[in-house]
C-alpha cells in the first residue's frame, strides 16, 4: 500500500486551482483571522463568512458539498468549550441532571459556545479548501515568498517528501507486528501493558535508526546531484493582475464582514 493516498490535493483546472498560491494562503489566513475577530453572536457576519466559503468552493469546481463533508474534524475539540455553557452567568435556559451534577445552561453561555463552534467550523473549511486546490509544494513555496524562514520551509518540504516513505515503513512494521501477534478465541494474548509499550517503543527506536540511516543516503544522493544547501526550482512563480484583483476583492469582502459583525 502506498500511503500517498492521504495527500489532500484534488487535481483540477479551476480558477481557484490556478490562483497564485501566495494569494490563496493570504486570503485563507485573513479569513481565519477575520473569524477570530468577529464578536460572539454576529450571526449576519457568520452567514456572510459561510457564503464566502460556499463561493470559494464553487470556484474550485470540487462540488458544493466538498468542504462541508470534511468540516467536522474539529468537532471533538468542542468538548473543551462545553464548560462555558454553564460557567458564564446569564439567564438560565434549561437545567438538567448529569451523573451527580445539576447543570444549568445560561443564554450567555449558549451564545458563546455556538459562536466558538461556528468560528472553528468556518475556519476549518477554508483550510480544507486551500490544501484541496493547491499542490502542497506550492503552498510551501508561497510560505517562502511570505518570509517564513528558509530552514523551516526546507524542513517542511523534506517532511512532505519523506512522510509517505516513512509512513509506508510504519505500516509495514505495524503489519509485521500484527502478523506475529496470534490470538486464539477465549485465550488472553499478548503481554502486560508495559510489555506492549516496550514493543511499541522498540518499533519507534527501530524507525528512528532506519530514518537516521536513510538521511545519510539521501544526503549523499543529493550531493551527487549537486546539492549546495538550498532547494532549487525552475517554476517562475509570477502572479497575474487578475490574481491580485481576486485577492484584493476577497480582503475587501472580509473587511465588510467585520463591519457587518459590529452592528
Amino acid at each position, binding site marked *: 500500500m502506498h500511503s500517498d493516498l492521504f495527500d489532500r490535493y484534488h487535481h483540477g483546472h479551476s480558477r481557484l486551482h490556478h490562483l497564485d498560491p501566495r494569494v490563496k494562503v493570504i486570503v485563507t489566513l485573513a479569513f481565519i*483571522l477575520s473569524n477570530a475577530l468577529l464578536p460572539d453572536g454576529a450571526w449576519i457576519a457568520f452567514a456572510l463568512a459561510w457564503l464566502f466559503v460556499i463561493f470559494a468552493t464553487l470556484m474550485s469546481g470540487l462540488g458544493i458539498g466538498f468542504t462541508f463533508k470534511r468540516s467536522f474534524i474539529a468537532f471533538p475539540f468542542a468538548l473543551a*468549550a462545553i464548560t462555558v455553557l454553564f460557567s458564564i452567568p446569564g439567564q438560565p435556559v434549561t437545567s438538567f441532571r448529569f451523573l451527580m451534577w445539576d447543570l444549568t445552561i445560561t443564554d450567555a453561555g449558549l451564545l458563546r459556545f455556538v459562536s466558538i463552534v461556528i468560528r472553528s467550523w468556518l475556519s476549518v473549511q477554508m483550510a480544507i479548501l486551500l490544501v484541496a486546490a493547491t499542490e502542497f509544494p506550492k503552498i510551501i513555496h508561497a510560505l517562502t515568498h511570505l518570509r517564513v524562514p528558509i530552514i523551516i520551509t526546507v524542513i517542511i518540504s523534506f517532511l512532505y517528501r519523506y512522510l509517505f516513505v516513512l509512513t509506508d515503513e510504519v505500516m509495514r512494521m505495524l503489519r509485521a507486528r500484527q502478523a506475529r501477534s496470534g490470538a486464539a478465541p477465549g485465550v488472553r494474548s499478548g503481554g502486560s501493558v508495559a510489555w506492549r509499550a516496550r514493543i511499541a517503543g522498540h518499533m519507534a527506536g527501530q524507525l528512528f535508526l532506519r530514518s537516521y540511516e536513510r538521511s545519510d543516503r539521501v544526503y549523499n544522493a543529493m550531493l551527487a546531484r549537486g546539492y549546495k544547501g538550498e532547494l532549487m526550482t525552475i517554476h517562475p512563480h509570477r502572479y497575474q493582475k487578475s490574481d491580485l484583483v481576486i485577492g484584493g476583492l476577497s480582503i475587501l469582502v472580509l473587511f465588510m464582514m467585520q463591519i457587518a459583525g459590529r452592528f
Partner: protein
Amino acid sequence: MHYAPAPLHIPDGFLNFIVSLICWAITVAVLSMAISRTNKSLGEKQVPLMGIMAAFIFAAQMINFPVAGGTSGHLLGGALAAIVLGPWAAMLVMTAVIAVQALLFQDGGLLVMGANILNMGLLTSAIGYGLYRGVLGNSRSVKLTVAGVSAWLSVMAGALGTALQLWLSGTSSLQTVVLAMLGVHAVIGIGEALITVAALSFIFQTRPDLLDEKSISAKSGRGWVVVGVVISLAVVLLSPFASANPDGLERVATDMGFINAGQSAPFQIISDYNIPFLGATPLSTILAGVTGVLVVLGLVIVAGKSLQQKSQIENRQS
C-alpha cells in the same frame, strides 16, 4: 489510511485573537533563536537530517499500542526528539511536524499554530533535553528513568499550556479544563514515557554512538538544565494551583449550593489537592502536587527497571 487527531491540537476558533497573538510572539521569538543557533552550529548535512527526522516523528506518532477498553497509547515525540537531536533542532523538527499536521490535515488550526507549536514543540523539547542533560554522566538506568520522567512531564506541560490558553481565551472554565486536560494527559503521558524509554534503550543497544555523552552535550549548553527544571517546576506547582482555584463550574456550583455533590468524586487519594492535616493553604496544594509527581516518578522507575531487566534477559537469550 486513517489519521487520528490528537487531543492537544487546538483548532482555529477556540483561542481568541489576543491569546493566539501572544503565543505566536513567544513561539517566533524562541524559533528565531533556534534558527540562528542551528544556522551557526550545523552544516548543510543537518538540513536533510532534520527534514527526515521530522518525517520520522510524524510517522512514529502512528505507532500505538492497545492499553485497555479500546484506548491506545502513542507517542508525541517532543522529548525523544530533543534527547537525540538536541533542543534547537528538535524545536524546528516539531514545528515542521505541527505545521504539516495543520496545513495538510487540518489537525490544529493556522491562527492558533503559534500556541500549538509552543505547547507541543517548544515546552516538550526544553523539558526533554534539559532534564536529560542534567543527568549525563550517570548510569544508563538513571538516564533512562529521567528520560521517562521528562517525557511524562513534557506531555503534562503541553496539556497545562493548552488548558491555560483555552481558559485565557474564555473558551473553558479554568478548573474544569485544567483538571480534565491534566487528568487525561497524566495517563497519555505514561504511554509517552514508556515508549520514549523503550525507544532510547533500543538505540542504546544498537547504536550507542548516537547517544554517547559527548554527542549529547555537544548539542547545547548546560543552561538547558536550568530551563528544563524551571519549566518542570512551573508545571508541577502551577497545575494544582490552577485546578484548586475556585473558578467557573465550581463557582456556579457554589452559588447553587451543589458544591458538595461536585466534590465527592469516586476516587480521591488527595482530596481536592490538599494534604489533610495542612488544611487548604498554598503550601498544602504544592505538597499535594509534589506528592503526585513522586508517585508517578516511582511508577516510572519501577516500570523502567522491569523493562530493563527484561531487555537484559532477552539479550542473553538471543
